[in-house]
């Protein structure tokens, strides 16, 4: 269960203060697939970054199973990211020169796992993301759709219970976007809590999506 209370985020710049999030209150149930819609600059990514604990809010709380992750120290926030969160980004944030297999090592080598366990995790993630056949290829040689599936594999390799997707189909063609929807279904069926931000109309009227909310200028519409 994720509970967001009075969450606000302000960015200060030379041009003044920008309110990215304004007093957000939200509850997300376990295994829920929540879609956050909104225009660019509406605060979607900021909200997801805060839930993923890669950004601190200006005020408010984010309670994950009753624990406020906003107050976490770097060590606890890292542990939280390592064990509980998988982040699927719109840009293909991967080690381009490494093979897909080696990319998936990064989240696993900091855990106390044997080599066999690591391989087991990697194979499972590759299969779920439907990208096993590209495991030994360098990421830079993959197509956009394959890179997106690689990001999914990296996000789920640690078997997290929360999956955060920030504009996952923004750089995909229609065919690959549909393939992504299939993967989402699989993840939901696997019991994951999924929070997805998008302004892609593809996510409208999908049965497996539990709830759609809109963000407008930092507030839930």
């Amino acid at each position, binding site marked *: 269960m994720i509970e967001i209370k009075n969450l606000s985020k302000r960015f200060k710049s030379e041009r003044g203060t920008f309110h990215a999030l304004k007093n957000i209150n939200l509850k997300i149930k376990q295994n829920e697939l929540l879609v956050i819609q909104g225009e660019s600059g509406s605060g979607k990514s900021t909200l997801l970054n805060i839930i993923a604990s890669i*950004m601190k809010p200006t005020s408010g709380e984010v309670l994950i199973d009753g624990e406020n992750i906003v107050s976490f120290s770097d060590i606890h926030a890292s542990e939280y990211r390592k064990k509980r969160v998988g982040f699927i980004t719109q840009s293909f944030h991967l080690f381009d020169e490494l093979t897909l297999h080696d990319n998936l090592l990064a989240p696993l080598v900091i855990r106390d796992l044997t080599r066999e366990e690591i391989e087991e995790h990697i194979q499972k993630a590759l299969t779920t993301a439907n990208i096993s056949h590209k495991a030994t290829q360098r990421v830079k040689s993959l197509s956009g759709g394959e890179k997106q599936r690689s990001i999914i594999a990296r996000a789920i390799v640690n078997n997290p219970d929360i999956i955060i997707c920030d504009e996952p189909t923004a750089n995909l063609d229609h065919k690959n976007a549909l393939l992504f929807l299939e993967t989402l279904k699989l993840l939901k069926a696997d019991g994951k809590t999924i929070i997805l931000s998008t302004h892609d109309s593809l996510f409208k009227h999908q049965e497996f999506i539990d709830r759609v909310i809109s963000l407008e200028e930092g507030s839930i519409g």
Partner: protein
Amino acid sequence: MLNRLNFLLILLVTYRKKHFSIFILSTLLITLLSSLMFLSSSIKKDIYTTLENQADFTLQKYIAGRVLNTPESWIDEFLNIEGVLNVQGRVYGMHYYEPAEQYFMIVGLDFYDTQIVKEMQELVENINIDEFLEKKNMIIGSGVKKFFDKYHYFDYYSFRPPDRTIEKIYIYKKLNSATDIVSNDMIIMDIANARKILGVEDGYVSDIVLKAPSLEERETILTKLKLSHFDMRIIQKSDIKKYYENLYNYKGGIFLTLFSIVLLSFGLILFQRYSMISSVDAKEVALLRLSGWKINEVLWFKITENFIVILSAYFAGIFLAYFYVYFLNAPLLKNIFLGYANLQNSTTFSPNFTLSDLVLIFLLFVLPFLLAILIPLWKVSIQEPSEVMR
């Protein structure tokens, strides 16, 4: 831990091009710096080792600013001074070797003097004095041998003494290469032959050397020597030492210049590394942080990665410098230190460096390099991962 090491090796191999340029540049700088240090300490050691066996006082007849041949009769006078040992007359002088337009130093020794025989046995391996004295023989330095060989004087060389006769002297042996720094241009022969070639009359020597082992008595001996002859110049061992020190301090200036250039170059590399943390590095940090790596884990990982690169460069540099100085005899660089005062010196350098020298090079290179890496990486790591990703 093994899994992290495995991942580290994967990254090192994958981004080898990025590390290779740093490795090559650092190896070159460490090689140059180490070579300078090895050379400098080797030369100093060789000089001091040679000087250690030198006489404490050298005495010359000296009138109106000119050095004249010294009467041999003075030797007995000096022997009567308390605390004085091994008073020897030396006959030496320069010989102009016309074919090569070079000067050689002829040194005549009394091979019936047991002390001299003992010293010669240290300088020349397997010398048989009886055999040496059987005919007119000479022992030559490496530089002399090189020029003799060049003009096909393999067995003997005919000197032209001032009395216009010809003095045929056979080449008996070459002096040990380890003594080249002082004996490179030297020809050692029996004192009688040297006298004839150099035109030093019987009853005279070029100078007189003596030892005064007791430090307490040295001042008194100096005073007695000063009082003994008004027309005598006294050169103390400390004067010779100072002469060499001055000579090598001048060389030390060149050493310092080279050393500064090396450090400056390294400084520039560090500055480049410090001020321009690459986008690849920043992205790596962001990806690792996103994957749940803690700040200290990221820093240790990156430090280890760079430590492996710079440590490899350090060992490669030390190895290359060792090979360059002690196996190849430091071509080019050697000339800066030894110069061409007379014969081009073909000294072979004997290994002379301590652990502290190696530690110094390590501290000069490895630590600043790691700091130059660590500080910008730390700055990136402590930012919010979302900030770095952007």
